């Protein structure tokens, strides 16, 4: 009896990996999915927390894709291992702080390790030649294959015919003629293939699914690195960069002011890690203080700013509480900061 071959697919939750899996399933291969959680995935945090996204379905797209395809999905926490990729990328960063080439290499390398441990035959990804400016260029795709150790076990079904033959094709596990030759940034071939497969609903995240490609997020991350003795980070640090308005009052002092009820509620969970400020005379935002006040002026500025983002912003005075992370509290009454007095240089 002919042995059923097994492939593991890197599943991001987007259309390309969904199509890549389907193309391979159509050739009788058993496919399972693997999804790496780096901490920088766009979905999840923000949508889960922010009330303004309440109309968006709170679904994990990788799980959803796996369910549509009828495949198992293994979600792997790589937050700690990923730090080295982000902090020391051999191939550098893209437009923002996105180490895409190192990232893709890392993920394929992890998949190589996974197929060895689970007795799978090869790896598939939804990559397309020329689709992305860093990791999906004709010159860089072989780099990923080589440096990851994936070599000819790495199949990119959507553009395989643009690339050298892989082992599964040579061995006859896959029919090269039934793989595709997509290239470039156009999405039309993918849309057509999706229609052919009957996929009507799929995620199309603008700019990819990684916060590191987002300019605003990159600015906040670089600010954090610049103002700390070390660039090392914890998961809480990178989640907090997605929350609230950020004001850098001094190299040692940053305020994070919640933008809405959902964020305020989420940030409440950090009150025992950070000093916090919240209005008591009016409803308003919670502020987490990342750092310390070294002068009374800084404390007054912080209080006035938080008052400004409360519903007492037009009142003569607002009463606020400063709560230390150990739970001790002190009350203050202050006039909200006038918008023209907010130093633009504070805003990150």
């Amino acid at each position, binding site marked *: 009896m002919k042995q059923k071959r097994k492939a593991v697919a890197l599943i991001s939750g987007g259309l390309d990996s969904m199509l890549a899996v389907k193309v391979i399933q159509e050739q009788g291969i058993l496919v399972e999915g693997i*999804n790496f*959680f780096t901490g920088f*995935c766009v979905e*999840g*945090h923000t*949508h*889960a*927390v922010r009330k303004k996204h309440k109309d968006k*379905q*709170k*679904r*994990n797209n*990788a*799980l*959803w894709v*796996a*369910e549509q395809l009828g*495949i*198992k*999905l*293994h*979600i*792997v*926490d790589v937050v700690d291992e990923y730090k080295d990729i982000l902090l020391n990328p051999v191939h550098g960063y893209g437009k923002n702080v996105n180490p895409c080439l190192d990232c893709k290499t890392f993920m394929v390398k992890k998949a190589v390790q996974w197929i060895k441990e689970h007795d799978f035959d090869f790896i598939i990804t939804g990559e397309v030649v020329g689709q992305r400016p860093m990791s999906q260029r004709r010159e860089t795709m072989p780099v990923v294959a080589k440096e990851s150790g994936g070599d000819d076990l790495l199949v990119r079904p959507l553009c395989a015919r643009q690339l050298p033959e892989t082992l599964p094709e040579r061995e006859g596990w896959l029919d090269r003629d039934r793989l595709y030759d997509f290239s470039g940034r156009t999405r039309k071939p993918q849309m057509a293939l999706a229609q052919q497969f009957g996929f009507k609903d799929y995620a199309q995240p603008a700019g990819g699914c990684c916060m590191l490609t987002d300019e605003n997020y990159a600015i906040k991350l670089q600010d954090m690195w610049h103002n700390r003795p070390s660039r090392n980070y914890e998961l809480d640090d990178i*989640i907090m960069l997605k929350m609230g308005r950020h004001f850098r009052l001094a190299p040692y002092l940053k305020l994070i002011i919640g933008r809405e009820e959902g964020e305020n*509620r989420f940030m409440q*969970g950090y009150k025992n890690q950070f000093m916090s400020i919240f209005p008591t005379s009016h409803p308003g935002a919670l502020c987490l203080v990342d750092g310390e006040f070294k002068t009374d002026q800084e404390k007054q500025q912080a209080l006035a700013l938080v008052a400004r983002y409360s519903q007492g912003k037009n009142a003569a005075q607002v009463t606020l509480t400063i709560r230390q992370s150990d739970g001790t509290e002190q009350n203050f009454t202050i006039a909200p900061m006038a918008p023209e007095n907010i130093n633009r240089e504070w805003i990150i």
Partner: protein
Amino acid sequence: MSNELHYVDARRLLCPLPVIRAQDAVAQLKTGDKVVVTSTDPGVKADIPAWCRINGHEVIDIKEQDNEIIITLCVNHKE
């Protein structure tokens, strides 16, 4: 078949971490064991059942109390 009860505290974690914590716990357990996952991220209401459907496990109960979502699932490692 085993029938032990296990607990996963995924409070304050945002998806997909509660799913990962549940997945890692389930990997260590036997068919028939039950896992109670407590989370504060409403995303788990969609994600943990989806993960269970994909991987063949069964969600027995989902309840909410005091801003926490408590999901009980039954492990099934059968192919």
